[in-house]
């Protein structure tokens, strides 16, 4: 499989209280196209920082991050935003839906950056909601949905622009087991049926079992990479 994400000697440091913390230390990693990677490790191991760098939300202090051949940190603010809207879908632990908008409106948001007509945007949003099994909840606001439903709306929003990469940070962290399984099954389907490359940060070994590769991290360095036969969706 060709590499979708190529991370080459990436370093990220933070200054805190006059002290420099190295969160990522010359880290190398290749993520194959169509792969489902789980990043695991203790708190402070650099998982979320790595995810931020892949999504262009943060800048490395050294090294390169290539996504589908593009060195994303060569892009300036507006170009990086445009690249992000076309290539990456985010799924957050806290769902991060906009509370004043309905599920349909939340899913439609990323489509406002595309040349699609209003009607096409509505159709795409409803299709995405159908995909996550929430077409009957399209006019509900986030506070009228359960946690599991909110996360599925967030996944619909992440895939509605058909990005190549989905980045998920603890997507099941705030969910009960049943809802978590439902969300993980959905991610597996997206990976298998739609060939999305998924990078998921998790502390949960059961969640990690859904990935094809488990990448262990510790103190900003890469540990063991474990190839897995995933659980059935």
């Amino acid at each position: 499989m060709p590499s979708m994400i190529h991370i080459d000697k990436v370093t990220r440091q933070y200054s805190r209280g006059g002290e420099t913390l190295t969160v990522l230390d010359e880290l190398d990693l290749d993520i194959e196209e169509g792969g489902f990677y789980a990043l695991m490790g203790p708190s402070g191991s650099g998982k979320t920082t790595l995810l931020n760098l892949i999504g262009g939300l943060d800048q490395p202090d050294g090294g390169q991050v290539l996504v589908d051949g593009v060195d994303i940190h060569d892009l300036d603010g507006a170009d990086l935003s445009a690249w992000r809207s076309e290539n990456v879908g985010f799924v957050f632990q806290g769902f991060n839906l906009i509370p004043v908008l309905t599920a349909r409106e939340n899913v439609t948001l990323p489509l406002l950056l595309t040349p699609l007509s209003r009607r096409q945007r509505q159709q795409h949003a409803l299709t995405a909601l159908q995909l996550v099994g929430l077409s009957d909840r399209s006019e509900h606001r986030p506070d009228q949905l359960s946690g599991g439903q909110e996360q599925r709306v967030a996944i619909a929003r992440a895939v509605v622009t058909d990005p190549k990469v989905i980045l998920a940070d603890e997507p099941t962290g705030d969910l009960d087991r049943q809802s978590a399984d439902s969300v993980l099954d959905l991610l597996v389907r997206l990976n298998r049926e739609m060939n999305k490359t998924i990078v998921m940060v998790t502390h949960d070994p059961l969640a990690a079992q859904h990935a094809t590769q488990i990448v262990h991290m510790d103190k900003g360095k890469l540990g063991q990479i474990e190839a897995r036969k995933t659980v059935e969706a």
Partner: protein
Amino acid sequence: MPIRLVWKQLWRHKLRFLLTVASLSVAIFLLCILRSLVVTLDAGVRASTTHRLIVQSAVSLFVNLPEAYESKIRQVDGVDTCAKMQWFGGYYKEQANFFAQFAIDPESWLACYPEVEILEGSLKTFLTSRQHCLVGIRTAEKYGFQVGQTVPITGTIFPRVDQKPWEFVIAGIYRATSPNVDNANLLFHFDRLRETLLSKEATGPPGSGVFVVRCRPDSDPVQVMADIDALFAGGPQRVQATPEGEFQAQFVTMVGNVPFFVSSIGGGVLAAIVLAVLNTMLMYGREQTRDVGILKSLGFNDRIVFAVLLSQSMILCLAGGAIGIGLAVVTATPMQNLLGTAFPNYQVSEQVLGSAVLLTFGIGLFAGLMPALSASRLKVIDTLRRGI
């Protein structure tokens, strides 16, 4: 730009939105009124012509000049016509029913003020009958006066000895096309005033309060004023000739520096509302920090985020401004009646409305700029620290 999001963010706190819009409406309404008062005060001065002069006593406006001065003034080179004009200072039925009355030389006064036109009735009747008067359209409308009606006016400066009011029959109703002539006046014959005083039927100071002078178009008004002043420099009473605009301006300053006072209140109102809207927008901005992070993570760039916040401020202010301006327009006539003779030409002009629109935009921009800039500069990872 996600317009729906802009609106829903504003509507997120309905009460706050409505109260802020209401505050803005009241402030813009007040500013329109205050500005209109200043413009009204200034309108008479600005509309005055430089070729019309007012001759008054050099001692005080309240000292009358001898009637004989009229013929002498007429002989000054450059003077086209001259008319006596005396403040009567009476009231209609009750003291609260006050409007200005003047005793004038009808023909020469009307020659001085060609902008006065007769809407109803007969000018000829007025010119030929000393019992008749002209009434301005505003006073006629306010009291429902009709041509032919007798108007009783109780004199305060010129009270009748028999304690009865003076009676004037309305010959016509006039309207001036320029704001330097009040449309609320009652004008009657100076000769009648003089004769009544001479016959001892009424008491009061003799002479004329001022003379209105119209200069010939080819004359130099400054030279005419100097010549008139020089003519009476040796007495018996010295005079002061001034352009009509300057004379009008005296009245504005007589009641204190009203424009400054009114403008100061307006400035206070403006400062208060700008701070109130800024505070509201900062609250909106702070509450949307997480939402800004979400938008940015979805690919919305800094300029769009800036526009989202600024639009909220603009919508808030334009809604309040539109209501305030609408109120000012709708209440213009009731305000005119309420202000009565204090501001007889009160109107909400296009200039005032234009200023209010600009002000509304200005407040919107000012209040929205800071939260919009802050939002556009936010880093996604800072705003979504609890998420990605």
